């Protein structure tokens, strides 16, 4: 049982993954909510659609996840009223970074990935640490199963660094269905070795046609 006093955080576990493609982005997370060795629920969604081209997946402390999602949705609504347009994914990415940093001295205990389409319709994924440092990448994973999944994604998807000056072509070679299959495979593997990951996998695919959602069963043990 977590000790109270002034320690208010708890890790509710879970893993999220996102992969950016040429004209799509796949964002996925498992649906298990745990505390210590107990499972609170098998049907908890860690993904929130912030805008029609922008999806946030978080893992960590559920209370902070909910508070962060509500905060971002409310700010997005105000943005739409003031600017008369929806927030683009890069704009939301920087806004999320600032929102996280404003709680630098009392952090949101959430590990976030933002996925969506940028202004040119290309897939983009932004990965964050808990206090707001962010980077646009081609793929990312966060959460308790993140260290299990990342090497597999590196092996399949790693492309030349964007920092190289003799710039090398860095397009993720996968098609949308191949990316979805890869996500299902990595989650099946992570479920085998991480106690906090499992039950069901929620996959969101963002492309020019909109947002599509799929559910896949994972091991429940």
């Amino acid at each position, binding site marked *: 049982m977590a000790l109270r006093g002034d320690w208010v955080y708890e890790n509710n576990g879970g893993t999220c993954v996102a992969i950016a493609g040429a004209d799509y982005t796949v964002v996925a997370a498992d649906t298990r909510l745990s505390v210590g060795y107990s499972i609170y629920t098998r049907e908890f969604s860690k993904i929130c659609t912030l805008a029609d081209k922008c999806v946030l997946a978080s893992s960590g402390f559920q209370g902070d996840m909910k508070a962060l999602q509500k905060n971002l949705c409310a700010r997005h609504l105000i943005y739409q009223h003031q600017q008369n347009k929806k927030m683009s994914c890069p704009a939301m990415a920087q806004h999320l970074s600032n929102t996280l940093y404003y*709680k630098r001295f009392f952090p949101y205990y959430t590990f976030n990935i933002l996925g969506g389409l940028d202004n040119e319709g290309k897939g983009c994924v932004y990965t964050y640490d808990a206090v707001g440092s962010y980077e646009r990448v081609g793929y990312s994973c966060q959460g308790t199963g993140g260290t299990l999944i990342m090497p597999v994604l590196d092996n399949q998807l790693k492309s030349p660094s964007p920092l190289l000056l003799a710039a090398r072509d860095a397009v993720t070679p996968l098609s949308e269905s191949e990316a979805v299959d890869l996500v299902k495979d990595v989650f099946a593997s992570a479920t085998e070795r991480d106690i906090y990951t499992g039950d069901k996998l929620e996959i969101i695919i963002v492309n020019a046609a909109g947002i599509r959602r799929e559910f896949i069963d994972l091991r429940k043990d």
Partner: protein
Amino acid sequence: MKLDASGLQTFAPHRADPDNLYPDLSAPPSFDLPGCPDFDGFQKKAIQMVKPAKGTTTLAFIFNEGVIVAADSRASMGGYISSQTVKKIIEINPYMIGTMAGGAADCQFWHRNLGIKCRLHELANKRRISVTGASKLLANILYSYRGMGLSVGTMIAGWDETGPALYYVDSEGGRLKGKRFSVGSGSPYAYGVLDSGYRSDLSIEEAAELARRAIYHATFRDGASGGVASVYHVGPNGWKKLSGDDVGELHYKYYPVVPAIVEHEMADAPPA
């Protein structure tokens, strides 16, 4: 505890909320603080739990042709490498750059904030801010947050009316003007190479190669540094990125594999 939030205030009036419908959201931005009695203990535990991305080697030096700035690109969260593609050289404006060492979020946020303040200074005073001024703005903000656990070790390099300038600014509130600095976990290794090879009359190419080698050697020996070694030059017309090389490839460029000379070669046994 009253924090100095002047670093967070923009000068533009908040748009369109004359009826004060959103009092919380139009309030000037400020940092939420935990309301617990042991603030330092809480910060220590929170930082250990959250493990924000850190770790690095950065260096900069002034020579006759301007300023060379170089950095690696690895971010580590505890013992896990969270990224090999972090941009640690931050472009504040076309003639001034800053480096990132320490907490990645702290550096990104405060450099972005500094860029905003530099732009506002230009608009208010109709001239560019000097490197002295910019580094002072940053140092004053960091000093006001001294003791709260920020981790920033940055260098501000630029070319202004007085010529090339280089300042080191850190989250303890220190601000030093100098000609040669290296910051980060890999800095001892970088200093070794940099100090022994430095001359003020280097050409731009030689200076860039010295910086590249220093970063490479730091990534070789320091586990928290790696990725891509980026080198920038700041001249009278602003900064320019000179090179970005993967340090793994630099290793084989500096120390090519020489096939060993074999005296007696063992042939495969003939199939029985």
